[in-house]
């Protein structure tokens, strides 16, 4: 299932949070060789985790972390604006209707279904919060994953080659894309809506039935 959790709420989801930060270490440090900081507990965190971001996490049936991503508003501090202006032709992307999405991570063994479920969750954020675009940094490995689930970003700029290739991309989300990733994820749109409403409060059953 998908959970939407702000940084200050991670304490209530200790196991899930630990799994997420450890799987991030596994993915970004060991597999992708990024220059990221891993602490003595084997957890990867950066400065943006300290800004109380919104995490979207795929929780497996056994309660462990299956995949995740992290959102911050672009009107505040973002990774793209702080470090990757050379990939956006110097354009500092800042708007209340654009959020930054970073640290898209899959637990070992996490496949296209989990990626698609996360994308579907991104769509819920856009639909419900009036967000028009996500902007984010990704490496070459992710290109195939995004393509496989039919959620390829528009690439604003790329640097490096081969495994060192890194890009800034832009996502929009149409209703047809939503149906497609929902199919890929094997999650009905009603269930996706339910998960969203459960995280953000409200009577999900009643709202789902009246939708």
């Amino acid at each position, binding site marked *: 299932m998908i959970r939407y959790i702000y940084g200050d709420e991670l304490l209530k989801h200790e196991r899930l949070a630990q799994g997420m930060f450890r799987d991030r270490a596994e993915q970004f440090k060991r597999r992708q060789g990024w220059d990221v900081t891993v602490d003595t507990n084997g957890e990867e965190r950066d400065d943006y985790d300290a800004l109380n971001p919104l995490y979207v996490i795929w929780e497996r049936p056994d309660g462990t972390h299956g995949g995740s991503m992290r959102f911050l508003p672009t009107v505040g501090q973002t990774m793209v604006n702080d470090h990757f202006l050379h990939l956006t032709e110097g*354009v500092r992307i*800042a708007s*209340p*209707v654009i959020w930054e999405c970073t640290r898209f991570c899959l637990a070992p063994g996490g496949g296209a279904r989990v990626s698609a479920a996360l994308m579907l969750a991104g769509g819920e954020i856009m639909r419900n*919060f009036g967000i028009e675009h996500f902007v984010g940094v990704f490496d070459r490995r992710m290109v195939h994953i995004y393509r496989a689930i039919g959620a390829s970003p*528009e690439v604003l700029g790329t640097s490096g080659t081969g495994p060192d290739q890194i890009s800034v991309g832009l996502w929009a989300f149409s209703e047809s894309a939503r149906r497609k990733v929902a199919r890929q994820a094997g999650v009905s749109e009603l269930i996706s809506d339910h998960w969203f409403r459960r995280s953000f*409060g409200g009577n999900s059953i009643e709202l789902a039935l009246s939708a």
Partner: protein
Amino acid sequence: MLEEFINRMERAETRDDLTELTFFLRDHYGIAHVIYHWVNSDGEQYGAGTYPVEWAKHYIDSGYLRTDPVVQGCFQRFHPVEWKRLDWSSKAARKMMEEAVQFGIGHQGYSIPLRGPAGQFALFTMNDTCDDAAWAAFTTENVRDLMLIAHYFNQKALTFEPDRGESVPPPLSPRESEALTYLALGYSRAQVAELISISEHTLRVYVESARFKLGAMNTTHAVARALSMGVIVV
């Protein structure tokens, strides 16, 4: 209409001017209330809004800042918050709402949390007495504009803070200026995208970004403001 709001916002020099702007927005949207509620890290607060002053006084005297589920539910958040989704189950919260209704406050609310420097926190709230369906239709239709308006309100309010000085909008990058210049010259989006060799989608985001920096509500308005501020020259 919203351009007039921006123009008035630009001329605003005091908190009273901000209050007048909330009345302007209330009438524009035809809803019961519009409120900008500001809290700093020391718990100091002020409001600019259409609520009756008696309610504002009662709210402060009763210490409702600590009870209010809207404040609790928006603090440390950055997504727009629908009041119905908040936890109103406590006795204190229900009592507060019952009293609010007696002062003419609606039970429907939509609040946009805003973060500023040095622990400043603000809420921009729309409020009404209509039914759920009408309220959902209103927020869905206007969420994008409301997000922009809320941020412009906060930016303006921050300039009134001591030691902040006049906030200068960040300059546009050459790419953003280029895009706006071609738009000002009357080229279509498709033509501009082709001229500067980017996709229409990328262009949309560059224009969106420039629009926010210029304090504009839409592309046409952004172009007009860029011209009048001398940011672009055609």
